[in-house]
Structures are given as C-alpha cells and as structure tokens.
C-alpha cells in the first residue's frame, strides 16, 4: 500500500513535470542553478550533485529532441570544461564516468544483450591500455633492459600523435582478443562460462605482471611509465584561455588543459559507443542477440548462427574497452597490472546490473552512480568527518566529542560495504535496475476498429510514441 502511494505520487509528480512548457522551465532553472552553485563554490558536493541531477533530468523530461541535443552539447562542450577548469577534480570524476560508461556499455552487449556472463571484462581494457602503454612509451627499446631501469637517452618509440591511430588499433586488437577469449562460449554456457572468462581475465593480468622476462614487454608489476600523451596544440590552449579566462578566473595551464582534452576525447568515444550500441540493438543483430539470450535452441531453429553471434558480441564489447584502454593509458601516462583486477571487472558488472541490465541509459546511469559513489560521496564524507575530528565540536545531549570518533569509522573504508548493501537492496526491491530495459515500441498500423471493438492497445502505444518523441500537445 505504502509503496503504491509513493509510486502514485511520483507518477503524478512526473506528469506535472512533463506538462506543456514545465519541463523546459524546470530543466533550465535547475541547470542554471546547478551551474552557478558549482561555479561559485567549486568544492561543494551538493552543488555538484545538483548539477549532475539537473543534467540527468533534462534527458528524461519530455522535451523536444533538438532541445535535448542542444542542451547536451552545451553541457558537454562549454559548461563542464569551464567548471572543470575551476576545479579539475570534477573533470576527473566526469572523465571516469565517461570511461566507465563505455566499459559498461561494452559489457552490456555481452551480458545484457546476449546474456553471456563475463567476469574477465577488464582484460580488454588492459589490452588497450598496454597496447598504447608499450608503443607509446620507451618500452620497445627496453626489451633487453633490466625491468625498472631506463638507460639514459632512450627515445620514445613513436611520435605522440600516433595516439589517435592507436585508439582505432585498440578497437581492433581488443576485438581480436575478445574473439579468442570468446572461443569458450562455443562449448560452455552459463556458470561455466563465467568461471572461464574469470580465468581468461586473470591470465591477461598475469601476463602483464610477468612479461618482464625473458623479454621486458610490460615492465612487470611496476608498470610502464612514462606513456606519451598526444601533443597539445598551443594555439588551442591560447584560444581556450582567451575565450574562457574571464569565466574561469585564471589561465588554464597545459597540464590542466590536458584534463579537458582527455575529457572531450572520452566524451567523443562514449558518444560513438552509444550510437553504435543503439544501432546494433535495433537491428537483425540485436534481435538475434536477444533471441539467443531468451532461448538459444529456438534461436538456432529460427536460423540464427548462435556461435557466430556470441563471438560477435564478445568482439564488439571488447572493442569498446580497447578504445578506452588506450585513452586511459595516455591520460594517466602510466599503466600497471593493478588497474585490471578481478574486482574491477566485477565493478563494471555492478554498474551494468545496478543501472539496468540491457538498458543503454540505465547502464550509463549505473556507471555514473557507482563512480560518483566511489570517488566522491564517500571520500568527501570522510574528509568532512576528519575535519570534525580535528575540531572541538561536540554532539550535544549525548556529549560526544567528535575528536573521539574512531578512525575505523572512516566511511571511505566502508566503500565495499556500502556498495554491497546498495546492491542487496537493489536486488530485493528493484532487480531490473535503476532504469530497466524496455523493448522498443513500434508504430504499428492500428487494428481495424470494427474488428476489435474496445481495443485500447493501439491508442496506448500511440500516446507512448508521442511522449517518446517529445511531441508537444498543447
């Protein structure tokens, strides 16, 4: 009963938000408010969250598609870089959200669309990262060097701008590794596949860990550094500063501008990934993946070459991770096996499941929520508690001195616990995720009203279509 009241009031609130011009006003007000708040106090977490929610809300409100698109471009290309230049930390968070969105979308093709469990997904990310890590550093000249030593005067193997080509190479190489790692799916299903992919993922990580001898490919557990970043066009930096210096308040340094640049590249990659994913989902290939997930035997009987499509899912999913891996290596200028653990693979899987398995916007929200939870909320809460601990503040009535608060209660230490609790609650109360996947409703020709009296099915779908398209009835 209670849940119904909550749901009903939410629904009527949603209906109110979507009426007429309301969505435009609401999202404009929230966006301006969020932007101004973040601008004024770049370190405030609530301000950032408000901004993030405003951006998210404008996607879901019932507005014209062109307006949404313009808003998205405005936010991604103008507002975020400016706000980010004032506090690089935000840029870092959003960069990570973008990276993990692409990873989660890639894993979603395998797990969500085709229903194949993959616990070793980080391996593909590692492949991309080590691809540029190797070729974008001095490593090719260090094959015979003792790991960890760099003879003076060692040159870089490639010019830094090869980076852009390696994003594409990352796609191809990761896809090939994906095919190889996907080979077990031809024989194994379900739980067994999960275990095998886990093993494959660990193999890749152990290779990275141990390929420092006999030939030093990966520099072992120490990782490869420095890795080159693409060159920074000075004119671009000058242009950015000339344009936005009054807004940012100070000149952006080259290092800070790199953050903006990587952020923009990451957003570009994510946009491509989203478009590709949407188009694949709504095609013969996407339908075949869904059919395999639902009933493999029936899918085969309908003429679907299941093995080929499963391998394809692995390859496509891997390719997204490969591209992001190249980007990751360049942005960090450092790769080491530690970044590609089993726990990381599970983390990406969590984003997919939390957000809504099989749902593209859901998976992106999952990536955002988990990343923000990971890097922002808990850590800043820890910081807040640490400040309290240093102060002389006392909780009245129970007379508790904050400085007596044990270090063990540091929330950032409980990240996994909080995570676990959220996951358990989600699985109990909303097992399909924050934004569950829905099958696309098609505009089918309405059935003859004479034949089917009182049939409301067609009207419903028509109304939903109008809503989806954002047609404004006034």
């Amino acid at each position: 009963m209670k849940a119904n009241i909550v749901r009903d009031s939410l629904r009527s609130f949603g209906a109110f938000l979507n009426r007429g011009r309301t969505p435009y006003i609401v999202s404009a007000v929230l966006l301006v408010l969020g932007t101004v708040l973040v601008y004024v106090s770049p370190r405030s977490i609530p301000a950032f969250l408000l901004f993030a929610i405003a951006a998210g809300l404008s996607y879901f409100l019932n507005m014209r598609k062109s307006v949404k698109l313009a808003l998205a471009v405005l936010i991604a290309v103008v507002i975020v870089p400016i706000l980010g230049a004032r506090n690089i930390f935000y840029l870092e968070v959003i960069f990570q959200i973008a990276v993990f969105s692409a990873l989660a979308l890639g894993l979603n093709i395998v797990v969500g669309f085709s229903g194949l469990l993959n616990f070793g997904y980080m391996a593909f990310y590692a492949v991309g990262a080590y691809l540029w890590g190797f070729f974008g550093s001095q490593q090719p000249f260090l094959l015979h060097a003792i790991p960890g030593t760099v003879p003076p005067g060692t040159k870089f193997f490639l010019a830094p701008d090869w980076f852009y080509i390696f994003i594409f190479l990352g796609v191809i190489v990761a896809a090939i590794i994906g095919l190889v790692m996907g080979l077990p799916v031809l024989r194994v299903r379900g739980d067994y596949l999960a275990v095998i992919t886990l093993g494959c993922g660990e193999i890749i990580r152990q290779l990275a860990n141990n390929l420092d001898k006999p030939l030093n490919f990966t520099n072992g557990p120490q990782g490869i550094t420095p890795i080159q970043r693409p060159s920074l066009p000075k004119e671009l930096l000058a242009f950015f500063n000339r344009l936005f210096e009054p807004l940012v308040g100070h000149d952006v340094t080259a290092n800070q501008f790199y953050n903006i640049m990587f952020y923009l590249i990451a957003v570009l990659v994510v946009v491509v990934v989203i478009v590709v994913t949407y188009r694949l989902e709504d095609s013969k290939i996407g339908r075949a993946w869904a059919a395999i997930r639902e009933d493999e035997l029936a899918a085969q009987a309908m003429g679907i070459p299941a093995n080929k499509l499963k391998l394809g899912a692995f390859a496509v999913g891997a390719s997204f991770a490969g591209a992001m891996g190249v980007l990751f290596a360049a942005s960090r200028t450092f790769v080491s096996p530690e970044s590609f653990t089993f726990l990381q693979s599970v983390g990406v899987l969590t984003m997919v499941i939390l957000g809504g398995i099989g749902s593209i916007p859901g998976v992106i929200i999952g990536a955002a929520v988990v990343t923000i939870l990971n890097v922002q909320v808990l850590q800043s809460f820890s910081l807040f508690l640490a400040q309290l601990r240093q102060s002389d503040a006392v909780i009245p009535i129970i007379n508790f001195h904050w400085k007596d608060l044990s270090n063990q209660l540091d929330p950032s230490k409980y990240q996994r616990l909080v995570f676990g609790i959220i996951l358990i609650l989600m699985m109990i109360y909303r097992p399909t995720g924050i934004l569950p996947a829905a099958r696309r409703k098609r505009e089918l020709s309405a059935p003859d009203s004479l034949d089917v009296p009182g049939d409301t099915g067609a009207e419903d779908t028509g109304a939903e279509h109008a809503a989806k398209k954002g047609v404004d009835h006034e």
Partner: protein
Amino acid sequence: MSRPAWILETTDVVKRFGGLTAVNKMSFSMEAGRIYSIIGPNGAGKTTFFNTLSGLYKTEEGSISFEGRRIDGFAPERITTLHMARTFQNIRLFGGMTVVENIMVGAYTRLKQGAVQTVLRTKAFKAEEARAEAKAEELMRYVGLKGVGNELAGSLPYGAQRRVEIARALASEPRLLLLDEPTAGMNPAETEDATSLFRRLRDELGITILLIEHDMRVVMNISERISVMDYGEKIAEGEPREIAANPKVIEAYLGRGAAGGNAAELAAGGAEEAKA
C-alpha cells in the same frame, strides 16, 4: 523438372541417447504440397525425429534429404536457410521480446543487412527494416493476431502464443513447415481455427506441412497421409482411413488385445489423451 518428387526423404535414420534408441531405422518420404502427420503414443520418438530433421540433433545413421539435398549433419540455422522451419511442442517464444520482434527474428535468414550497414544506418538498412516490420505485421494478420504487436510474447494467452510461433516460423519463408503438436492445450474452437489456418498455409501459400499431433480429430481431419511411430520405429503408414483400421496402430495406442476395436474407439482414445 528441377524440383524432386520428394520434398523430404529420410532413409534408416537412427538416433540414440546412450542405450536408448529413440529413433530406429526411420524411413519416411513426403510429397511437396501435402499435409502429412506423424502420430504415436507418448515417448514414441516423434519429437526426436523432428529434432533430427531440423538439425537440432545429429543422426547416428541414415540420411535425410530435403528437396533432393542431403541435410543430415547440417547446423539448424543452415537448414532454416534452406526454407525448412518448425515450431515446438512446448512453445518456445522469446518471451521477453515483443510479438513483432519475435516474428522479425524468424526473418533472420532472409534479411541481408550486415554489421557495417547496421552501424551506418544506411538507406538500404532502413528500407529493409521497414519491410521486415511490415511483413511481420502482415504475418500477424494472416495467423489472426490483432493489436498485440507491441506486447511481450510471454504475456500473451496460450492460443495466441501458438499463433505467434507459427508466424515466426512463416517469417523464415519455409517451403516445409514442421509443426510439433500445434493444437496441444487448445479448446475445440481454437483447434478448429488452427486446423483451418494449416489448410490455408498449404492451399494459399503452398507450404508443405508435417504435423506431430495427438488430437485424433485434427489428424484424421487434415492429414492426407499418416505415419505411426512406436518405440522409435514406423509401424504403419497410409491414408487416415487405413491407419484408423490398422490393428497394429490400435494395439500401440490401446494395448494388446484391443486390436478388435474400431476407428471410432481410436479417435476417441486419441482425443482423450490430448485432453489429459
């Protein structure tokens, strides 16, 4: 004459599961453009035989030819490409997909779009998708489904699910359609509808139909030729009237000593069995 006389021909097909011989030396031929049935008691190996025909099981011995071409050992998707389609005894729709999508999955082998076209969303891709959707709607109408295109297939009532399954099979443009107990669980009115649908498929679309069926009224009513299986072997074949009078058949259905019974008894027994 390019088209062979037999659309489907099997010789001595054997399928074993461990020590059990589920299909034993099954030889069976079918003329194009006819409606044939395979009947037999539960566990006689009918569905196993179907599964070997559609490639889901590999045969141990014997050969299967479809339109004059050996197909035993082919993967199921390859057989579907050759214009043979099937439905399942226990409906196997893609329950989480909409009805239209289910039918469009059936058209998988007939769609030419490739991965590159899909990602680039070319004009040809869009046109083909629109055609596939229109075709799916047409098939829905043909099998008598209205206004449920956007419903999840798993949420439909039983009879409608059977229709979707047939529409999905039709989407693959079959010349031979294998129907595994297509009227199981239907009430008499639905069964009536289904039977006339099968006739239309043959008369209007020229599709050859092979049925496995328990409902003797359906079998006797629609089949032009009936094969009877028991313990994995074909024990009789002939026209409905001959089969109904065949003592071996009656024995298989009603047990030893009942061979003195007549066709009416057989039909009644079959009908009861289908209801149970």
